[in-house]
């Protein structure tokens, strides 16, 4: 720990490590100094002039984003001098701003809107016509509205310092200056440019995918974990009308910083697609499969299981399933007398490392919980397209349990010989035609649970959507069955399922669901993060 410096900010004493900026020190006591150009993940050019604060003894206002704290300094962030400065600066920002908030995607989460509303003048005094730049398609997912830009250059610095592919620049100078790429070059081919939309403090850079899709104040925001690779980026799911509208990164310095990749950001249509399974389907004695309630379906299933008796289980799970779901499936397999547990997952050829934050990468494993599956005792089969590897299961005559794997590469006669074939998923699968039971389960966005990322960090996510029909989390269904077989208690929450996992799997021992918190817990540091 570095040496502490004590200073006074707005009458409150605060002690921070030497070298901390005034802006960061003010955050410690809950004072947000307005700013545009400063971003904790990048260098500070101190060019927006909004974070100027009054420092007693200093001849001028100081830019708090680059001024390091000094012993016994007295800082005022809300004095007359600081407020007048901000009011003046904000008036200048609005000289050329189009004030098109009603049609701007950023409206409701815009720093310019917020600051002007809080501290700006109620009207501008400029009589000059506003200069007009219009919009520019930057390629990729980014659309640029030049007139809304406040020239903070966060986007330029992100591409320069963090992604380290300097595609953006400030073109021209003075009031003609505008952000642009090299003529028609655009941002195509970069893998992290979605972040410049996040860090744009105004509506200058907007996402094409999200363009005019929803207003910021209509969105529900739910903490979650990105399911698109094994990095486990902390994300927020922004939902409306029971659909994911967009995905934003959530700060976690130990996993993803402030960033996430474009692949993960836009990979959510699979959650939104229609045609989910809604009811448990049970094959009757006449061979016809029909809808049933959970009580009947589980009762029948239990009877069936007992009837089969003694056969080893072959279970296929998806690494998109949470630790809780996988753990409960393993528990059920044990209760049925043991068997083989496998999973299949898609693997990309390369990692895509974010050069300015090298512990973050789009990992090769394009599933969130392969580490969890391995720890719980599942073995990977099949190729890098998640195909094949199930030859000995397709024709198996014992108990087959499929959880989440859609079997899209399998023939219609998959599991025809099986004594008991249970298919659990959120979508119907052609290969599940012979299933005796088709049970609807929820996706990660509809349930609570945890994933174990590539570095062994267990992180939990919350339900953002309502599952369709009677779909339930897999741990609830499997847990109820296992409890009946073991004469134990069924888990009533994801936390229960996790503690039962912790009691059964060595790697998770001693951890409770509550311990995971918002930052996660590292259970297994076997994987060394590549530096590339």
């Amino acid at each position, binding site marked *: 720990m570095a040496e502490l410096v004590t200073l006074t900010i707005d009458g409150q004493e605060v002690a921070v490590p030497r070298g901390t900026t005034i802006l960061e020190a003010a955050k410690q006591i809950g004072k947000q100094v307005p700013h545009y150009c400063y971003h904790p993940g990048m260098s500070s050019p101190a060019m927006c002039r909004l974070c100027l604060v009054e420092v007693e003894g200093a001849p001028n206002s100081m830019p708090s984003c680059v001024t390091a704290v000094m012993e016994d300094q007295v800082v005022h962030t809300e004095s007359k001098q600081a407020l007048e400065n901000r009011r003046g600066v904000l008036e200048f920002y609005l000289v050329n701003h189009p004030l098109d908030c009603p049609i701007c995607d950023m409206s409701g989460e815009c720093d310019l809107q917020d600051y002007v509303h809080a501290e700006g003048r109620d009207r501008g005094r400029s009589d000059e016509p506003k200069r007009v730049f219009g919009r520019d398609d930057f390629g990729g997912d980014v659309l640029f509205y030049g007139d809304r830009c406040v020239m903070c250059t966060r986007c330029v610095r992100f591409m320069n310092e963090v992604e380290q592919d*300097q*595609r*953006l*620049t*400030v073109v021209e100078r003075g009031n003609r200056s505008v952000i*642009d*790429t*090299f003529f028609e*070059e655009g941002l195509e081919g970069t893998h992290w440019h979605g972040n410049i939309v996040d860090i744009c403090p105004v509506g200058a850079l907007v996402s094409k995918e999200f363009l005019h899709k929803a207003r910021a104040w209509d969105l529900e925001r739910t903490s979650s974990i990105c399911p698109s690779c094994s990095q486990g980026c902390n994300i927020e799911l922004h939902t409306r009308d029971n659909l994911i509208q967009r995905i934003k990164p959530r700060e976690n310095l130990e996993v993803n910083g402030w960033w996430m990749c474009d692949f993960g950001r836009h990979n959510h249509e699979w959650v939104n697609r229609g045609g989910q399974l809604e009811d448990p389907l049970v094959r009757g004695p006449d061979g016809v499969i029909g809808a049933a309630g959970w009580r009947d379906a589980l009762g029948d299933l239990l009877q069936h299981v007992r009837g089969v008796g003694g056969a080893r289980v072959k279970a296929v799970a998806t690494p998109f399933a949470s630790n809780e779901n996988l753990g409960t499936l393993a528990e059920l397999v044990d209760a049925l007398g043991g068997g083989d547990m496998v999973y299949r997952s898609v693997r990309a050829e390369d990692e895509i490392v974010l050069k300015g934050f090298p512990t973050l990468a789009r990992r090769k494993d394009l599933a969130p919980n392969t580490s969890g599956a391995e720890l719980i005792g599942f073995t990977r089969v099949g190729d890098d397209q998640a195909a094949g590897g199930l030859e000995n299961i397709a024709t198996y005559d014992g108990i087959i349990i499929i959880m989440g794997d859609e079997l899209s590469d399998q023939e219609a006669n998959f599991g025809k010989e099986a004594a008991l074939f249970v298919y659990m998923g959120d979508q119907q699968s052609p290969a599940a035609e012979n299933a005796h039971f088709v049970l609807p389960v929820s996706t990660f966005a509809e349930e609570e649970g945890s994933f174990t990322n590539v570095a062994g960090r267990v992180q939990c996510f919350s339900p953002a959507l309502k599952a369709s029909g009677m779909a339930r989390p897999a741990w609830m269904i499997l847990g109820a069955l296992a409890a009946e077989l073991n004469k134990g208690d069924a888990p009533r929450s994801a936390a229960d399922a996790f503690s039962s996992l912790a009691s059964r799997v060595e790697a998770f021992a001693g951890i409770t669901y509550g311990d995971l918190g918002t930052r996660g817990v590292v259970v297994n540091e076997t994987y060394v993060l590549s530096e590339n």
Partner: protein
Amino acid sequence: MSDVPFRNPGWAGNTGEFDLTEEQVRGDDFIGQRPLHGGHSSVSGTMPYMLVERNPQAGLFEGEYQERLEKILTRYPKKRAALLPVLGMVQELRGYVSPESMDRVAELLDLSPAYVRGVTTFYTMYNKRPVGRHLVQVCTNISCNLCGADEVLAAFLRYTDIELGATSEDGDFTVIEAECLAACGFPTCVQINSRYFENVTPADVPKIIEHLRAQVAGSD
């Protein structure tokens, strides 16, 4: 002393700093080609105001220019620092810095093309479009403006018969406004190619243009 057809009392006398007489600076001696081995900016007074005929298709950094480039690169610890003089060289050869030239320079100096574009557009002295043989930059900043720069600018546009910023059909003239040329003591200041014309009044303009046209005719 050659017969200069217009009044230009802006000459401050021989300061002894350089080995140049008034005649040398004002006269035709220095009209011609800039030494290709480069030169220090302090001798910019020796720069020609008639640039050599520029060729927008000229090959970049070939022959003597390759040698000049290598010399420039030795002056700086990092390649990136050579960007401004290299862009200057591009403009000297081609008359303006085209997107293709920016791309070439970026490749040469290991920079991103976007960065080179940012730098090129930041500096107004790099032409982003082709200009005439004589680039007439009339200062309309405050000192010159108070002394009638607007009339001087209007006179240039009238006598060359072109719009502000446009190039005449014969390719001889481009007239643009400039911000302060740092010659506030001698308003109105007009920079034509690399040379300053000071204390210019609207009445001087026809004579200046005639002189420049003669230069063009002479070079044919």
